[in-house]
């Protein structure tokens, strides 16, 4: 599976995946996600070109979300097809990372959440 990482600004990291998030696909992107989860502030995973998601792919996403959240970060996914979204909602992944139709809506929401968190701290 192809994985492209765009550091949009100081806050947002945009990850674009392309292919099947199956066993092989998960093995190909695991280390990349591990690094991003340990260093990003807000991670948006673009699933628009992901045609399949199963056990190991969910594990990769959940591990990243858990690491990010425990560091005080935020994670979201965007653009999943109907079946991929069904997988995410069946596991309850949407309880810990928002699901958005596109990158723009995900980025807007994460920026608002980060701003609210910053103002609370101040």
């Amino acid at each position, binding site marked *: 599976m192809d994985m492209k990482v765009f550091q949009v600004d100081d806050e947002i990291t945009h990850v674009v995946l392309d292919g*099947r998030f*199956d*066993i*092989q696909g998960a*093995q190909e992107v695991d280390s990349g996600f591990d690094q991003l989860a340990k260093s990003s502030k807000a991670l948006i995973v673009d699933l628009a070109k992901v045609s*399949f*998601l*199963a*056990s*190991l792919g*969910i*594990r990769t996403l*959940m*591990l990243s979300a*858990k690491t990010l*959240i*425990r560091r005080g970060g935020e994670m979201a996914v965007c653009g999943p097809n109907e*079946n991929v979204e*069904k*997988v995410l909602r*069946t*596991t*309850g*992944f949407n*309880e*810990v990372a928002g699901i958005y139709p596109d990158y723009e809506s995900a980025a807007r929401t994460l920026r608002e959440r980060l701003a609210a968190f910053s103002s609370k701290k101040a």
Partner: protein
Amino acid sequence: MSEPAPRACSRDFPGTVEAASDAENWVALQANALGLGQEAEFAIGLCLEELFLNAVKHGHANHASISLCAEPNGVIVEFADDGEPFDPTRAPAKRINGPTDDFDIGGYGTGLMHKFSRRISYRRFEGMNRLVLEFEADRNANASRGR
């Protein structure tokens, strides 16, 4: 017009994670060749990845076999492995409930298999776990291939 005859295929695999990945590719190819449609291909691939990885990682299976049969009213898939006895139909369907950073990373497979299949049945027979899963057929995909 008579209904199309059932179409089927099967294959044996060693009990390894690499073979599980091979099985995934094989199933995707066969689902396409049998004209099962994208919905059924996704659902079957999802359930088989879960079953195969469970059998290898937790059941210590040395051998697994998969058979697919496309019928006019659905798709029947049998997964068999020689691992330790395990009935996934009796395992609880886990789900993350509410915003939290304290959630399990695994264990969501049972809920997914029930969500994506029409019916699942299990039996232990001759030292093998035997799962039979039924899926909705994409009737349009089957019909268009039959033309």
